[in-house]
């Protein structure tokens, strides 16, 4: 027993140690993971973000280097603060504040002291930097805008938020990501792929060289360059015309659905949201809740379309066979229905058939046509759903499903909405109850891009391509079926000719006679949309919106567009002028009707917009 004790103790100890080692090294793998965590640092090599070009190859967005002065508080040694401050052109107080902030954040992790130096400041500082231990300069890449326009289309980039970091493991805190517009929508193509370097660290978190001579390291893949469908010049011109107005312009190429211009007003210059100035500028834009410069009216503004919508009703009526081109309807300053209801109209010669009905925008004509559509069927429910289906085939009442970062579905009412509204079956309702649909008022809401799209569909005589902004990635044209495939409306091709003729006569003898351009065969339709706002709980009517849709030339149109000017009064007053100028700019590359241009550039609606906020009684529509 005495001889055996020590043998026993030694062997038991050996067994216990070996089982413990087994537990640590084989059984419990969490220790291995911990080791990877604290001995290997992962460094990312950021690729250049892709550039963005317009449809003519003009560079819109590229990158610019920027230099941040960084500090690692722990490595600071006493230095000549006076010299440092004079080199960087900052006050001593600011420096002390920044250093304190950095120290609170982390003594070990670098913090930014002075962000985004210019190249000149950098060159000067670079020489002196070695004097200041603990400071270093980090190069970053910022967006460089070669245009002052299209901010709503291009969007902007900013630091990725925590919620996304949780969801997507590609991003680390501090990474830049597209937040809006093309930058957001095509983030994956633009950003490229980060390169990874594994660095062996020591216990002080210092780098001591590449891990395993860098066999696991990867090189960054540069971002892809995008060509977007925008025409930079047309966009700029649109934004110029929309100065001092609110509203939107959407111009499309009917044959392809490419967005030529997407203007919202008021807007902002894209360079405002770059780097150091981004945060204060964004706050300023964000809190302007009256003009809403960040609100893209072209794709998000849901307005009553007004008279341009009549063209759709005309097409549906022809398709449904409820009217012939020769059917005339009389108009006595409006259309009377029921005992005392009247849909008013302006003075024009009458009675009218379809083509002059369109060109003169006769409300009574379309009230009759609309009733016939709805009343063709046994119940108004059936009729309106039929009507709704036709309207939706033009891309209205639902999301277009495109590659813009924002959008709204608009609204096309059907039987469901009216049954609810009129408490069917308790009460019955008839076509007349929905009569404002005839003239694009009432329950119908569309966005300017939807209006441009249905205009393109009319110009194409029955089909459209989903409007989109992407044209090519790294020079390769897109092949996405959603954009390349025609989407047919429910209207037969043969019914379009008379409607197009009506739209043509809008310029030759109708509501936009004054806007004729001598050698462009242009088709269009004016609109004047009544609208109401609620300010401080009071519902009030404001001056009508000025609406205009157009395409040109009449055959094989090259451009289709919708212009919407808030409170611009009648259609040809603001929107019509702007629309024809845009068409002229795009097709002829220069403006001959300079008087028209001057009128638009010198007329502002700011006064009109200020009215409802003046807290004084005001008049509208004058």
């Amino acid at each position, binding site marked *: 027993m*005495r*001889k055996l*004790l*020590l*043998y026993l*103790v*030694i*062997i038991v*100890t*050996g067994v*216990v*140690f*070996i*089982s*413990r*080692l*087994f*537990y*640590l*090294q*084989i*059984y*419990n*793998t*969490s*220790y*291995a993971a*911990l*080791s*990877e965590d*604290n*001995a*290997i640092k992962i460094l990312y090599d950021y690729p250049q973000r892709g550039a963005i070009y317009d449809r003519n190859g003009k560079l819109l967005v590229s990158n610019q280097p920027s230099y941040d002065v960084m500090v690692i508080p722990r490595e600071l040694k006493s230095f000549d603060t006076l010299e440092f401050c004079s080199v960087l052109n900052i006050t001593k107080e600011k420096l002390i504040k920044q250093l304190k902030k950095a120290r609170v954040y982390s003594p070990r992790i670098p913090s930014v002291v002075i962000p985004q130096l210019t190249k000149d400041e950098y060159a000067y500082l670079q020489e002196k930097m070695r004097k200041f231990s603990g400071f270093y300069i980090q190069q970053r890449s910022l967006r460089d805008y070669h245009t002052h326009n299209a901010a709503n289309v291009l969007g902007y980039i900013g630091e990725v938020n925590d919620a996304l970091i949780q969801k997507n493991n590609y991003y680390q805190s501090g990474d830049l990501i597209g937040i809006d517009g093309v930058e957001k929508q095509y983030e994956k193509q633009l950003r490229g792929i980060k390169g990874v370097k594994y660095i*062996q*660290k*020591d*216990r002080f978190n210092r780098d*001591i*060289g590449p*891990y*395993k001579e860098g066999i696991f390291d990867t090189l960054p893949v540069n971002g892809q360059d995008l060509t977007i469908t925008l025409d930079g010049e047309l966009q700029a011109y649109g934004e110029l015309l929309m100065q001092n107005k609110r509203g939107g312009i959407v111009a499309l190429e009917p044959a392809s659905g490419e967005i030529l211009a997407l203007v919202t007003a008021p807007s902002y210059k894209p360079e405002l949201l770059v780097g150091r100035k981004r945060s204060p500028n964004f706050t300023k834009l964000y809190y302007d809740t009256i003009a809403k410069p960040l609100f893209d009216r072209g794709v998000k503004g849901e307005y009553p379309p007004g008279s341009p919508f009549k063209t759709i009703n005309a097409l549906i009526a022809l398709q449904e066979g409820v009217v012939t081109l020769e059917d005339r309807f009389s108009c006595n300053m409006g259309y009377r229905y029921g005992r005392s209801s009247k849909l008013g109209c302006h003075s024009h010669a009458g009675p009218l058939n379809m083509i002059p009905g369109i060109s003169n925008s006769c409300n009574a004509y379309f009230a009759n046509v609309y009733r016939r559509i709805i009343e063709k069927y046994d119940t108004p429910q059936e009729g309106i759903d039929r009507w709704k289906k036709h309207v939706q085939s033009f891309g209205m009442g639902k999301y277009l499903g495109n590659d813009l970062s924002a959008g709204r579905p608009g609204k096309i009412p059907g039987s469901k909405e009216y049954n609810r509204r009129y408490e069917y079956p308790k009460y019955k309702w008839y076509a007349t109850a929905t009569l404002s649909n005839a003239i694009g008022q009432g329950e119908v809401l569309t966005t300017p891009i939807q209006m441009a799209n249905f205009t393109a569909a009319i110009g194409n005589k029955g089909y459209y391509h989903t409007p989109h902004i992407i044209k090519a990635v790294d020079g390769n044209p897109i092949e996405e079926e959603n954009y390349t495939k025609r989407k047919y409306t429910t209207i037969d091709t043969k019914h379009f000719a008379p409607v197009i003729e009506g739209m043509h006569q809008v310029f030759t003898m109708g509501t936009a006679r004054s806007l004729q351009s001598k050698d462009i065969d242009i088709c269009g339709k004016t609109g004047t949309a009544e609208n109401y706002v609620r300010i401080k709980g009071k519902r009030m009517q404001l001056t009508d919106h000025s609406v205009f849709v157009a395409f040109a030339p009449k055959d094989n149109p090259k451009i289709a567009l919708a212009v919407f000017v808030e409170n611009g009064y009648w259609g040809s007053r603001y929107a019509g002028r702007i629309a024809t100028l845009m068409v002229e700019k795009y097709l002829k590359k220069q403006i001959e009707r300079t008087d028209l241009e001057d009128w638009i550039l010198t007329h502002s609606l700011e006064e009109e917009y200020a009215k409802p906020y003046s807290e004084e009684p005001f008049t509208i529509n004058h």
Partner: protein
Amino acid sequence: MAKSSIAAIDWITVLLFILLVGFGWGNIYSSSYSDEVFSITDLSQVYSKQGLWIVLSIFLIIVTQAIEVKFYEGFAGVIFVGSLVSLLGLFVFGKTISGATSWYNLGFMSIQPSEFAKAATALALAKFLSDMQTNIKRVNHQLKAFLIIALPALIIVPQPDPGSALVYAAFFFPLYREGLAPIYLIIGASAAILFVATLLFGPLLVVIGAVLFVLGFLMMQFMNLHHERRSRTYTLIIIVILALCVLRYTLSMTTIVETLTAYLEILVPILNYSILGILALVIGFFIGLLSKGTATQRQKPNYLMYIATLAVIVGFCYSVSYIYTNVFEERHRNRFDIVLGKAVDAKGIGYNTNQSQIAIGSGGWFGKGWKEGTQTKGGFVPEQHTDYIFSTVGEEWGFLGSTLVILLFVFLLIRLLILAERQKSQFSRVYGYSVVGVLFVHFAVNVGMVIGLLPTVGIPLPFFSYGGSGLWGFTVLLFIFIKLDANRVNEW
């Protein structure tokens, strides 16, 4: 005479020694080299210094082999006194390195006399026990033996170097071998168990456990008196339960605490106490079984003895708890708390232990390869080339490598035990046992600490850890025994 004793040298031991020292140097090299190019002979580098110490230890080996055995025996007392003087001298001439005044500065190197004092104490103890007049069963001789052991330890403690002092507990192994009553070991082991248990579970629970334990023991005693044959079945059951307990312990001490805490939360306290109680009963039962057939078992139980034992246990547990909270310093408490799993602090106090476990754990089956350890390279484990050298083995050589080192030590210790047992002179046997004891305590405490089973105690791993004094101390300790063993044929 020299010729015959060289032939009689136990080459197995020498081979194990060479393997350990060689492998140790490889790991020191890996944990301390840097990518900058240094010549292997550049003495500013840790690994080249260790290389020099290894080369110089060859001269020490030659010297130990050249000296007559009679000299060791005859001058044991003088050597011991000289060693004590060298320890005392530290209080006047000592040089302080990392908090402990344990070194003499010789200019080109520092010498730590406590590393050599172990060999001196072993010689002195061997000399004393082999004296014809010494009878270890007599209390006054026991006290003298304790004094020999305690003197150097008491001088070393206030340097302060409690770790090195702790090693002197190893000398109880030769004492036990030479006939020291087992009660000392039982008391020592019980005290250690009660100490740890009190820290883990608090004094009340331990006292309840102890009462149940004694009851179990008592029960066994009655059973032995009446039904002797039935006990074998119980033995089997109890061994299985014990094996499970040991398994649990080795997996992780934390697991026990966690499991128990979980139980505490789920079950009513009474049920929980009963689980611990059943365990205590069972262990008492088992111990009772072991002592079956001894004189006590055939007698009627001595109730006074039981009550006295219990009283001592109660007193001990409550004073441990009191001392722990009121006398121990924060840093001592922390070390225990970390190992006992009562506190988790991977960044502060527990940093060493945690980092060394991470390094070892990241080794896997085969390790990352020599000089490829990322934790080692990063210097995450403090004192890695000295006390924590085993973590380098674990990271770079994996489970296979570290198991090999454990086995090398186990083989060496067992080989030395065999050698000690075959000695004809009591002097050599006691000395051999002392060598085994000292090496074992160093090995067990160091590796136990590195793999997170024992609290942080700063003592080196023999032959492995960096340090000239340590290496030379162990070399001298071992090779004196090899000389004694080689000379056994000349003894009468």
